[in-house]
């Protein structure tokens, strides 16, 4: 069984753009990528420096400010725009009066840690299984194929909730989230790697190596992995934002990072009730999450074009491509959002 449809569907053909326009678009794409990259760099820096920043601006992410909220009115921040002040740059959290700026910065730590960790693990699992399926015999290939089909029919979020419930409460949550997201989301990588392996297998240099008596491990390491790097890195660029969203989604459903640790998804989920009374509280984590995922997507697209000039940019801002390449078993493993 296959999902040719999707493979075909996703292999879009971009416009044959004229030379000057093409260059302009590329430039544009690069500029967007540069902005996105800079933004993400800044976020990463802030996240890494969060404890230092906390000391510098004198805000503890967990310090309560009961005087900054109106207790009789459900704990809504006093003052306008969610209680913005010289001391609390982005206002305070309703119900607790905790500083939002520093909590958002700390939240970035969690988001990035979980997303990057899960992506690395997904790639490790996906590449191993993909190569095994590609190089293995028909039986192994079929078995692994069915396995990924099962994982595709699996309601990822429901399983994630169940898995987080199975694990004892003392288990470190970020690690748990990394494991859950990775274990449920390796299917896409595996499919791509398998497809690539199958086509590489037919190429002369791999065939030669196999004929020359190299074992499957040697072939995988020496011949396949270097050629797989480009598509895998491209795919990582898609996985990263997907995983950020996945972490936020799990926290949104209440099974993610545990309080008092700040996380964007958790802030969003408690913010859902406040969209009328304190809109600023919703807009901040929502906007930040949106921009981060957007930046990752832009950067990923640019990376993809840069790495494989034959591939058009997914966003239709890349190079001309004349023939449709039929890929098999492309990922259908969408993001859980």
């Amino acid at each position, binding site marked *: 069984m296959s999902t040719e449809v999707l493979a075909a569907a996703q292999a879009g053909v971009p416009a044959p753009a004229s030379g000057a326009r093409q260059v302009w678009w590329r430039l544009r794409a690069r500029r967007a990528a540069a902005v996105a990259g800079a933004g993400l760099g800044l976020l990463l820096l802030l996240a890494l420096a969060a404890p230092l920043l906390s000391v510098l601006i004198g805000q503890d992410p967990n310090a309560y400010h009961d005087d900054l909220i109106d207790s009789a009115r459900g704990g809504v921040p006093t003052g306008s725009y969610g209680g913005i002040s010289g001391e609390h740059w982005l206002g305070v959290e309703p119900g607790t009066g905790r500083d939002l700026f520093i909590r958002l910065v700390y939240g970035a730590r969690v988001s990035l840690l979980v997303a990057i960790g899960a992506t690395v693990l997904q790639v490790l699992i996906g590449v191993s299984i993909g190569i095994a399926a590609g190089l293995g015999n028909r039986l192994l290939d079929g078995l692994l194929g069915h396995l990924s089909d099962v994982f595709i029919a699996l309601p990822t979020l429901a399983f994630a909730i169940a898995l987080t419930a199975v694990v004892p409460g003392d288990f470190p949550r970020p690690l748990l989230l990394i494991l859950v997201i990775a274990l449920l989301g390796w299917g896409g990588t595996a499919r791509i790697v398998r497809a690539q392996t199958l086509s590489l297998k037919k190429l002369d240099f791999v065939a030669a190596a196999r004929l020359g008596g190299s074992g499957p491990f040697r072939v995988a390491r020496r011949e396949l992995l270097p050629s797989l790097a480009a598509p895998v890195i491209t795919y990582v660029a898609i996985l990263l934002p997907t995983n950020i969203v996945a972490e936020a989604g799990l926290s949104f459903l209440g099974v993610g990072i545990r309080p008092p640790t700040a996380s964007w998804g958790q802030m969003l989920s408690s913010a859902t009730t406040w969209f009328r009374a304190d809109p600023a509280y919703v807009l901040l984590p929502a906007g930040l999450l*949106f921009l981060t995922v957007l930046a990752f997507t832009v950067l990923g697209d640019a990376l993809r074009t840069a790495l494989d000039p034959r591939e058009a940019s997914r966003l239709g801002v890349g190079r001309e491509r004349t023939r449709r390449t039929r890929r098999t078993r492309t990922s259908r493993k969408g993001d859980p959002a």
Partner: protein
Amino acid sequence: MTSYVLRRAAGAVLVLFVLSVVVYAVFYAVPGDPAKLACGPRCNPAQIAQVRDQLQLDDPLYTRYWHFLQGLFAGHDYSTGTGVLHCNAPCFGLSYQNDQQVTELISQRLPVTASLGFGAMVLWLVLGIGTGLLSALRRGGTTERVLTWFTLAGTATPVFIIGLLLLMVFCAQLQWLPFPSYVPLTESPEQWAWNMLLPWIALALIEAAKYARLTRSSVLETLADDHIRTFRAYGVSERAIVGRHALRGALPPVIALSALDLGSIFGSAMLTETLFGLPGLGQLMVHAVRDIDLPVVVGVVLVTGAAVVIANIIADLLYAATDRRVTLT
């Protein structure tokens, strides 16, 4: 063709079987005693034991799974105290929480999720095909740039964010749309649509981008074909070419992808329904998972899993039927 369908169907059954085993195994390990939950607070140990016996919770995992399979294919009888309750095949069992038949629970919730899915699909098709066509016709201009960013935004936004923003703008600020509250289609079609509009828009905005991209590339591909060039040479209007020929070429992948997306709408339905408080399958699932309501979890997983698998098959068939370049193997 027939053998292909049969093979796919057999594969689908196998996948669902494995799925049910996995669900059983995972939820078996979830801490908490369903008997205590089902019995209620301040039940004495004897009562809990009785409930446990009634729910057959003391049986080993494989026996319980076997009973589940039996119920699925042959139905199951439950004691009601005074008589017998017959649960017809396919019987997923009774909910631990309220003794309701799982099939009944699912059939109650299904219309909500289906309303959400189909409505959103109509919207994303209109939106996606429309923008896709537009941008294919006006290549390189502002339209294309707008589409590019629209696409980017769509890919970047999880449904709970776009939904929240929509709520803030249309429900809290402008007060144009109500906070969604599901009204059955049979009760009042206008109310049904009016209430579902926000969730539809939220889902459609995210999906439409993908369809716009797909439509655009398919249309462009068709437009580059030789026969279109011939039409142009004969002086057929651009409008007719696009409307009659290019669009026809673009539809198959769009339809196929729609089938797939509809099948997997469930994943996003959990978040959408949680955000908007819609009593659909997604919400049922979230609750059942927390209540360790194994029969409900298994039932919902199988039903939605089946939807995904069947959608996959239909998508491939549809695609093959409309595009001769694809052969089914």
